[in-house]
């Protein structure tokens, strides 16, 4: 272990901006992408569920 | 083979009836290359250094200008449909159309390039290398461009999309084409660049009409 303190770790030997900029961008984008994909999936699901509900209501009204 | 020549004759005849469309690309080439010295300044050493790159980028853009029309007119009036149903192989007809496109849009650039090269103070041997490089490179541009033109046929925003698809694929041609002239000026010899350009052309002659045909069949569906 080459770090003597937490501060030293975050300073990255003077390269903090570059190192954390790289790792940070990766982290942000790699969290955002799955969230966006998940939202896309749940949006389709929601609209499918809505459609099924509409089908059911339609059927109900017709049988009444 | 006769079908290929017939397609070439047909497209040349059609272009002859609409001369303005062919001349646009040529004028574009001339104007763009002439704009650079005006934008950069008339310093001969600098101009000589950037001449190959400028001439090549301008040739690339001029080729791109004519590409959307390559299949669009035939697609609109239904003659492309007839070609797809012709007993002649569609690949041959497509190859003919690409050849015609090169004769109309590529060859004039090759012939004009030495004249425009004079604006940049290139010497005779450099001009010769430039012409040979363009002679090998412009058919390559037409062949690769045809794939993009077929893929974007009848698609929303086709023209811009075509540029986005085709320009990255043009990079090797640009590098070796402009590189040939630069290497010659630097005294390194242009043989390597030119033979690589020729190899890429051979590859494209083989594959591009095939890919274009596949893309056209998809577009017609």
């Amino acid at each position, binding site marked *: 272990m080459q770090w003597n303190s937490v501060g030293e770790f975050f300073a990255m030997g003077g390269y903090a901006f570059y190192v954390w900029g790289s790792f940070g961008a990766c982290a942000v984008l790699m969290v955002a*992408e799955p969230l966006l994909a998940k939202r896309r999936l749940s949006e*389709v699901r929601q609209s499918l569920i809505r459609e099924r509900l509409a089908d059911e209501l339609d059927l109900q009204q017709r049988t009444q | 083979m006769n079908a290929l020549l017939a397609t070439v004759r047909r497209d040349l005849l059609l272009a002859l009836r609409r001369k303005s469309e062919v001349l646009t690309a040529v004028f574009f080439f001339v104007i763009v290359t002439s704009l650079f010295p005006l934008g950069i300044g008339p310093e001969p050493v600098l101009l000589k250094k950037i001449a190959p790159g400028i001439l090549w980028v301008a040739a690339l853009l001029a080729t791109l200008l004519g590409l959307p029309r390559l299949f669009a007119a035939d697609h609109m009036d239904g003659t492309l449909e007839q070609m797809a149903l012709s007993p002649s192989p569609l690949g041959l007809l497509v190859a003919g159309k690409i050849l015609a496109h090169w004769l109309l849009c590529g060859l004039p650039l090759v012939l004009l390039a030495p004249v425009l090269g004079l604006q940049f103070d290139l010497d005779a041997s450099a001009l010769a290398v430039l012409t040979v490089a363009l002679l090998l490179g412009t058919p390559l541009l037409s062949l690769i461009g045809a794939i993009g033109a077929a893929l974007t046929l009848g*698609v929303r*925003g086709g023209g811009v999309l075509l540029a986005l698809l085709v320009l990255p694929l043009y990079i090797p041609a640009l590098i070796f084409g402009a590189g040939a002239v630069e290497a010659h000026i630097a005294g390194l010899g242009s043989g390597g660049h030119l033979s690589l350009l020729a190899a890429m052309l051979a590859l494209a002659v083989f594959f591009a009409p095939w890919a274009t045909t596949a893309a056209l069949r998809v577009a017609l*569906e």
Partner: protein
Amino acid sequence: MRQSIIQWFRFASPQSFYPLAGRLIPWFWGAAAAFGIAGLWISFFVAPTDAQQGEGYRIIFVHVPASWMSMFIYLVMAFWAGLGLALNTRVSGMMAQALAPTGALMAALSLWTGALWGKPMWGAWWVWDARLTSELILFFLYLGFMALQAAIDDPRRADKAGAILALVGVVNIPIIYFSVKWWNTLHQGSTINLNKAPSMAQTMLWGMLMMALCFWMYSIAVALLRVRAIILERERHTEWVKHAVE
């Protein structure tokens, strides 16, 4: 033999691929997390400081995996596209479509981290280094693929057109890479290279490997997630989809 082919084709239908993908996703997330933790541990706490580049070199632990994945994903995408074109299986086209954004993201990350590495090492955000330039072109190829698919309304045509483009691209990538490399050497490239840390210690290699595995698993998980959404979007009028969502 015949049995196994049929088995494969069963998974090639969206109806059976949808639940399969759903079952697989958590496993890939788990693997990505495990490799990620191991990789980050090595990158920050095991790998020693580089004599020449100081702590700045640690960027390679994300840069190299992102570059690898961006190229690898294009190959996988072209593979699916070619499969779809040859066998006319619907899932193939959807897989290609699902992979493209992740590939583009990896290319973007590779460019971003490359620039952040370049500033302290070369003194410039952008240097026309062969690797970075090829990566930029690859990024354009991804954008072209996605733009083409987005511009075509009929999904069947979009799949086929995209497949042809992906295959043309895959033939061109080696040519592009080679030409850029050639061009770079002719124009006196940079002397220090991002991808060869001067004293490539064993631990650094392990770190890069772990991070690459993490990125790989991540890509599969996110692509499967996206392909599930695409399947539902495209098949929304079929009977099975109506029963698939609860």
